[in-house]
């Protein structure tokens, strides 16, 4: 009897499973929390004892350092003020008003009782496959993930926003509706890359960001007004890293797997 094999003899299965699951990433929110946990474990700096013999020299250096620090602090304050003004401005403008209104319109059309919102050519059972297929259609990465927090996935389809194709995922939670739109930036007006922005339009909460060719927005609505803009922004922040790129290869491995029978 020979030595036990350490490689299971099914390379076709291995490559298929790897292709389907390797794209599954930890959510951005989890990554941030874990980073914070790990950083909290960093050792604190030890206190330094200064020799009295060199105290005078140190004091002279300290006075100069204080002057420089004050100057640097003033520059930082001015810079921060500018940054805050810029962020506050951009916060409300991830994309132009025309695109925002068009998303609200599509959201209202799709998010209604009895509408399964499941395009038959879009895989609905796996967010990775769904994202890959939709990304292939819009030629940009697509935001597709289990939202958690009690949101139940309803369905995914290609929908028109402002007459242009977009990837549209719909979720529901106790009478509240949620849409995720992934749209090529070229199809939107006044796109600004940067931090997550927020906007309220006709009882709809919209959070969004633009990133390298794509615009990603969450639209939330609730007839009972139980949904807050902050919650929608927080949700988008949590899933900002769940962008799925188009699939590169076809399923040749599946054919090989079938031949193994």
């Amino acid at each position, binding site marked *: 009897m020979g030595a*036990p094999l*350490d490689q*299971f003899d*099914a390379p076709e*299965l*291995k490559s*298929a*499973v*790897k292709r*389907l*699951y*390797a794209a*599954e*990433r*930890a*959510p951005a*929110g*989890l*990554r941030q*929390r*874990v*980073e914070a*946990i*790990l*950083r*909290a*474990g*960093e*050792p604190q700096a030890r206190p330094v004892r200064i020799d009295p013999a060199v105290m005078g020299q140190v004091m002279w250096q300290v006075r100069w350092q204080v002057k420089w620090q004050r100057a640097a602090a003033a520059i930082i304050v001015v810079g921060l003020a500018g940054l805050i003004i810029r962020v506050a401005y951009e916060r409300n403008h991830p994309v132009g008003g025309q695109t925002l209104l068009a998303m609200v319109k599509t959201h209202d059309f799709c998010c209604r009782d009895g509408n399964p919102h499941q395009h*038959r*050519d*879009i*895989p*609905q*059972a*796996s967010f*990775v*496959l769904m994202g890959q*297929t939709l990304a292939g259609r819009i030629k940009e990465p697509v935001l597709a993930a*289990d939202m*958690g*927090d009690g949101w139940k996935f309803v369905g995914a389809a290609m929908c028109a926003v402002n007459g242009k194709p977009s990837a549209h995922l719909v979720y529901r939670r106790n009478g509240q509706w949620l849409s995720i739109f992934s749209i090529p930036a070229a199809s939107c007006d006044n796109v600004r890359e940067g931090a997550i922005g927020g906007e309220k339009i006709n009882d709809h909460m919209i959070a969004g960001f633009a990133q390298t060719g794509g615009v990603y927005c969450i639209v939330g609505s609730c007839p009972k007004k139980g949904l807050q803009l902050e919650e929608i922004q927080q949700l988008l922040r949590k899933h900002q890293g769940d962008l799925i790129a188009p699939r590169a290869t*076809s*399923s*040749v491995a*599946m*054919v090989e*797997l*079938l031949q*193994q*029978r």
Partner: protein
Amino acid sequence: MKLEQREFERLALEQIDLLYRVARRLTRDPNRAEDLVQETYLRALRSRDGFNLEEFGMKPWLLRILYNLHVSRSQREGRQPATVDDLELAGPDRRSASLPIDGRSFEGMDEQLVRAIDGLSQEYQSVLLLWAVDDFSYKEIAETLDIPIGTVMSRLHRVRQKLSEELHEYAVEARIVRAEKE
């Protein structure tokens, strides 16, 4: 070899996607998976002083913490993880089987494969993903999941049989291949 804090932080963080993938399979719930991963890092940080990179290896060490944590949580919650009989492949969640099949194409087969894997019990899913996605050897899988190496091999063998059966059924239904004549 003892690690500096920064190095430990970097190496540990590199494994977060792997840990999340395994946690998703074990818990079958994204929120519980996040909790499990977060708690794993907390435990790892507390045990950092006793960790030796050369002796344990970061990946198996973290996975072992995660798996033990999952087992102890399940026991505490009265949901003892089932000791899987090798003949009992199917997991408790078979909701995927009731979903309509989309697309009579090879893309549809990808979807079918995901459904078939989702339908496996967590023990089988864990073995399959550690082997296929993260290129673990049998020995590493056995050590991580605390099972004999022979069990790893038999589980992989049965997973392959099960998946190829399910895919073949679908392929016949979708007329990708012809049904075998009796």
